[in-house]
C-alpha cells in the first residue's frame, strides 16, 4: 500500500472527494469516542475492581454523571 499523495486526491472527481471528506469526518468522530474509551478504561482500571463488570460500568456512568453535573453547575454560575 503506497502513501497518500496529493496526486491521488486530485484525480478524484468532486463527488468522490465529498464522499471521502464525509468518511474522514465519520472516522474522526469514531476515533474521538475510542479515545474517550481509552481514557475511561485507564481511569476505571486504576480506580477499582477490574474483575467486576458492574464496577467498571458504574465507574463510566458515574464519571459521565460527574461531567454533566459540573457542566450544569458551571453554566448556571456563568448565567448569574
Amino acid at each position: 500500500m503506497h502513501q497518500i499523495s496529493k496526486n491521488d486526491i486530485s484525480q478524484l472527481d468532486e463527488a468522490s472527494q465529498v464522499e471521502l471528506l464525509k468518511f474522514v469526518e465519520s472516522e474522526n468522530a469514531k476515533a474521538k469516542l475510542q479515545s474517550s474509551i481509552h481514557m475511561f478504561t485507564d481511569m476505571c482500571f486504576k480506580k477499582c475492581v477490574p474483575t467486576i463488570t458492574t464496577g467498571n460500568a458504574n465507574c463510566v456512568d458515574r464519571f459521565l454523571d460527574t461531567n454533566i453535573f459540573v457542566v450544569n453547575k458551571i453554566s448556571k454560575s456563568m448565567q448569574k
Partner: protein
Amino acid sequence: MAFSLFGGSDKKDSGVAPVSGDSSNVNSIKENLQAQILQEIALTNATELISKISNNCYEKCILNPGSSLSAADAACLDQCSEKYIQAWNTISRRYLARVQSESRN
C-alpha cells in the same frame, strides 16, 4: 483474546452516485485512501492500548524490578492484560450505549 476495535468496518459503498469518466480508477483510488485511513486508525488504537496496558500492569505487577522477568511477574502481567482488555470491552459497550441513549433524548 476477544477484543473488538472499530477499524475493520465492513462498510462497502452503498448507493454511491455513479462517477463520470474513468470510474473504476477513481473508485480504486478512493477505496485505497479509505483503507489507509482505517489502517492508521487501527494502528493508533493498538498503540494506545498497548501503552495503557504497559503502564497499568507495570505498576501493578512489577513491584521490585529484578534482573529478569520472573515467572510470577509474567503470570501477573498475563492476568493483568486480560483484565484490562475485559475492562476496555465493558466500558466501550457501556459508554457507546449511553452516548446513543442520550443523543436520542
